[in-house]
């Protein structure tokens, strides 16, 4: 390296804090830091003083007290004797359940509608436009309330199914009853029950469930191997072996076997006393919320999908056609891989929105995290500061997890440019 003479910097003067680029930003940051710290100190100090005035403390001990209230729909066993912590966990699980189911359904709906809006069929495309605009321009809360009202006001009460000449009848071969409280669906019974795996804290998983998960995951890996093999054969001979029936077999056969093995069957619900029993009663609050979230988010996803497909220029499909690729292959080999890059990031932020919007469960009394920790627990214990801080923290973690996933994805599919 050549020898370097440092430029003769003038000695430090105070005015350089402001006029020198290097120090200026430092000065500014120090000022900002001091201001922020002062503000934070002010807030914390106020809080401490306010708590003192009220004679309260900041203490999460309440989480270990008896909750005392019941929750309509829980994913893990829960009674009023459990702690607030468990109630919180039940709520969190409910939040996660509705979010995941909502995201899955909204994705399917959104993709279908997004593609349909591009359809050449004038009427259908118009209809989809109406759907999308209607849902995008009206508050989600309204849709939640309306759908909930549809269920409570339009569906018959369970006792309408009673008697020799009932006013309502079950659908799907007497397997499903739509009522104004819940949708009663068949439960799963096993003649050959393999028992349960106890995870402690009264959380159990049926071995049957585990078996199914193992079989499905295993099937998925085998399917990947089959596809890989098909690819290899194609690379070698140019002809791609048909894989769909193998895939189907791998994915479906083992499950069928398991079903026979465990003697899995449906146990249809029946009306007993006031309500249906024997099956699973899915609360209307859940169904309405799920439907509303799905329809609302689906409308946004449809727009994203449409924009994503439109973002792939027309020339791409023309080039593919000109090369002799069929429309279906063009879609899978040329359009979709490109569209996905455009679609996925906003799609994930829709997932984020959906998760956050699920907190509107309060409007229909679905007990999610906000309903348990941020609702009843908060109120019964009077620990609003702790409960809200904890609740926000949990939502924040959920969101950060989702966006972390998004960043990883983005980094992977970035188009290489000059």
């Amino acid at each position, binding site marked *: 390296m050549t020898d370097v003479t440092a430029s003769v910097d003038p000695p430090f003067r105070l005015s350089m804090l402001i006029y020198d680029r290097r120090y200026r930003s430092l000065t500014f940051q120090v000022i900002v830091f001091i201001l922020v710290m002062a503000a934070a100190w002010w807030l914390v100090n106020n809080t401490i003083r306010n708590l003192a005035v009220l004679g309260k403390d900041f203490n999460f001990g309440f989480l270990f007290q008896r909750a005392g209230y019941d929750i309509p729909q829980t994913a893990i066993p829960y009674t009023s004797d459990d702690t607030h912590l468990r109630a919180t966990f039940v709520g969190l699980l409910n939040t996660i359940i509705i979010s995941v189911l909502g995201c899955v359904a909204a994705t399917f709906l959104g993709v279908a509608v997004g593609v349909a809006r591009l359809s050449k069929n004038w009427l259908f495309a118009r209809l989809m436009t109406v759907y999308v605009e209607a849902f995008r321009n009206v508050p989600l809360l309204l849709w939640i309330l309306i759908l909930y009202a549809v269920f409570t006001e339009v569906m018959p009460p369970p006792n309408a199914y009673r008697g020799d000449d009932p006013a309502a009848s079950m659908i799907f071969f007497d397997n499903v009853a739509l009522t104004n409280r819940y949708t009663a669906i068949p439960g799963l019974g096993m003649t050959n029950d393999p028992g349960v795996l106890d995870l402690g804290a009264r959380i159990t998983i049926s071995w049957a469930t585990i078996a199914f998960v193992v079989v499905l995951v295993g099937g998925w890996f085998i399917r990947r191997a089959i596809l890989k093999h098909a690819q290899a054969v*194609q*690379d*070698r*001979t*140019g*002809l*791609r072996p048909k894989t769909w029936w193998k895939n189907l077999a791998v994915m479906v056969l083992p499950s069928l076997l398991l079903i026979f093995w465990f003697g899995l069957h449906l146990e249809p619900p029946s009306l007993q006393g006031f309500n249906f029993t024997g099956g699973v009663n899915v609360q209307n609050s859940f169904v309405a919320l799920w439907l509303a979230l799905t329809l609302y988010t689906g409308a946004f996803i449809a727009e994203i999908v449409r924009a994503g497909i439109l973002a792939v*220029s027309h*020339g*791409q499909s*023309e*080039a*593919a*056609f*000109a*090369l*002799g*690729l*069929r429309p279906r*292959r063009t879609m899978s*080999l*040329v359009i979709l*891989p*490109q569209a996905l*890059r455009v679609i996925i990031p906003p799609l994930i932020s829709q997932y984020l929105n959906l998760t956050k919007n699920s907190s509107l469960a309060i409007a229909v009394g679905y007990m999610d995290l906000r309903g348990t920790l941020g609702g009843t627990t908060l109120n019964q214990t009077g620990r609003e500061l702790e409960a809200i801080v904890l609740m926000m923290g949990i939502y924040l973690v959920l969101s950060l997890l989702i966006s972390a996933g998004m960043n990883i994805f983005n980094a992977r599919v970035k*188009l*290489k*440019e*000059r």
Partner: protein
Amino acid sequence: MSEPITREIDRSQMQISDEVAIEIHKMNKWYGTFHVLRDIDLTVHRGERIVIAGPSGSGKSTLIRCINRLEEHQAGRIVVDGVELTSDIKNIDKVRSEVGMVFQHFNLFPHLTVLENCTLAPIWVRKIPRKQAEATAMRYLEKVKIPDQALKYPGQLSGGQQQRVAIARSLCMQPRIMLFDEPTSALDPEMIKEVLDTMIELAEEGMTMLCVTHEMGFAQAVANRVIFMDQGQIVEQNNPHDFFHNPRSERTKLFLSQILGH
């Protein structure tokens, strides 16, 4: 804009057979009620190199795209390599795998490498083993002088290089006819030459070519015939020399004065 064509083409080597490659008969096309192509009659023999010129909007692109069935014609016949273009999917597939097309804006697939761009159609349409497809692709990439870029993505190449990849991609399907739609008009001047050189080389090898272009140097150097279109009709057909030096129609004269004058 027209760069001088550096290499003078050796026309003696190029054979035009009597075999008919494309036959278009009284073909008409409308966009809605707008009559874009009117009574087009054109016969292209194997090995011919035809340049199509004409003012903007005269239907040049549409004509060329009809030959590839990227657009549908509504009346008349188009027979490519003995196959008539109807709505029959099999015919369309056959024609498309015989006819290569190069677009103005290259239309490379940005998510695939150059090599993958070139092997995609051979593998999925012609069902050629990957190894073999890659070997072919490399051969054509060498031909267009960018074998070293094979593993890059299109976005990493210059315009001229991209257009050459596009040509290589079409060639990989080993077409018997090549269509070019203004292949150089989106390129910077210094890149035009690279692409024209590649096209001239193709011409020398006897490829049947239809080329929409405003590169008059190119037309004079390689074309057997120049077709002049206006308002959806073929107004004049001639050999390049006569076309440029002795145009007969008024419209052609006007057009040439605009193109060459500037």
